[in-house]
């Protein structure tokens, strides 16, 4: 009888561990919808932008976006296609302004080719104003930094001339 209890105990423990393991696997599979390892989501607060401007590689593009912004993927595609055409290795970061964590990662499927993923961590107007005090809550908001550190900003899609200046 004791032996039976032991057997049952081992089986149940195994089942529970398996359940935990599958939960773990599931949580990862949810985040990797395109069979690509999801980018980690870095926090972006009121102090982030000034730090990033000092340390960012050049050239670089930042696309500020939201989970409801259906005009943003098209703007991202313009940037990404320009990078592909240039043949250069240039970073493009997406900054989610309204969702974090797994939700932010899910929205990154619209930005195939994005190299870094950030999410606002704090009060949105305060963070937005730390990037640009005059920027109303309209997305996409794009910042293009060229190899010399010159900065171009636009709400909406960048024009061909902006792209040309960015990739000099």
């Amino acid at each position, binding site marked *: 009888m004791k032996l039976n209890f032991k057997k049952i105990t081992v089986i149940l423990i195994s089942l529970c*561990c398996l359940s935990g393991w599958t939960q773990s696997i599931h*949580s990862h599979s949810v985040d990797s919808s395109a069979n690509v390892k999801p980018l980690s989501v870095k*926090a972006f607060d009121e102090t982030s932008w000034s730090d990033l401007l000092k340390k960012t590689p050049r050239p670089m593009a930042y696309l500020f976006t939201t989970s409801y*912004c259906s005009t943003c993927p098209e703007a991202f595609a313009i940037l990404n296609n320009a990078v592909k055409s240039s043949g250069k290795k240039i970073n493009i970061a997406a900054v989610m302004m309204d969702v974090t964590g797994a939700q932010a990662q899910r929205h990154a499927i619209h930005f195939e080719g994005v190299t870094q993923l950030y999410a606002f961590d*704090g009060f949105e107007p305060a963070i937005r*104003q730390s990037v640009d005090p005059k920027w109303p809550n309209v997305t996409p908001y794009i910042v293009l930094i060229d190899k010399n550190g010159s900065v171009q900003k636009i709400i909406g899609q960048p024009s061909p001339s902006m792209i040309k200046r960015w990739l000099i």
Partner: protein
Amino acid sequence: MKHFIALTLVACSMSTAIAQQNEVSAKKNGHEMHNARPQLATGAAFAPDGRLWIVGLNESLQLFVQSSNGEKLDEWAPPQILNTTGDAISADGENRPKIAFGPNGWVVISYTQPLAKPYTGFIRMLRSVDGGRTFSTPFTVHQDQQEITHRFESIAFDNKGALHTLWVDKRDQPPRNSGKTYVGAAIYRNVSVDGGATFGPDLKVADHSCECCRIALAPDADGNLQAMWRHVFGEQTRDHAFANFMVNKANEITRSSFDEWQINACPHHGPGLAINNIGKHVGYHAVWFGVRKLKNQSITSAWYAQLNLNGSPTPESVIALPDERAEHADVMAQGKNVAIVWRSSEGMKTTLKTWLSRDGGKRFEIKNIAEAKGYNDHPRLVQSNQKMAVVWRLPEGTQVYEIKF
């Protein structure tokens, strides 16, 4: 036997902990995210008995309703948690749960349920037939069941007790790679004449709306509802449209703003609309956000204008709100009294402001009525006959300020 149960429980706890730990460490590695912002977007309305009701999500993301105690607007009865059968619920920015009161003890609550695919959602509703004491479980309002955009709904009862629901809808988008294009989204609607028990067919109001802004509704002098929303005119001009949708055919719309804002972007900033009835019904008061050129300068602002009965703006009435940081303005009116509210954020500080007119919108007086540090919802105006109030939700609670002219 005791050991067996204890061991099993310990093992199960450990396995769950392992799974949770994986989740936590994935989020707390270096600079990774750990703070989701609070979901504060809240709907509000006066009940026929004069009590103020609010609907929103609590800290556990459960849908709740709460009413004021009698006519004291700043004292709240305990919240009632509603059964939403596990729906995810949008309650952020311009996408908030809403509540509306009709005849016969009918009360309805609506929200957008975001689906797994980004930018998609269903409009869901709960109904009460006993004045809000009990509510049904949620049901989908529209007939179209595709996993596409059905979002940013607005609800209101007309003077005959019919419930109108309008929403942003993307069923008219052509298939990918079809070579066809469709600018923006569409506004659809339906009607329920039995307080949300059944609904008529989905009807188109207009093609080419903006995709992610709230829709404003206001009654005319007869209690028929009018709608105003951000619309894409031509390829990229994001101005506003107005429709007497209970009468007009699809796409019979009036242009109600002429900012000529050429942009392919999401302002996420819908308009506000109120009847202008100064003894007789002369039109509407409207507020919106936009960028327009004045003397060759682009002015980014929230704007106010009076619209005529058809929804066209009276050009000389168009003025910028006196605050370059004004966001998400709302408007209501009673006779010659007009109230406009908005929030204005500078860094972590947000100021709640009112702009009041006692002469039908000719002259306004600005007043700061409250401040908050950090997270806060957009302010909402609510009205019951002569009484008007601003509802403003903060993480620590919902503030209500009665407006005195």
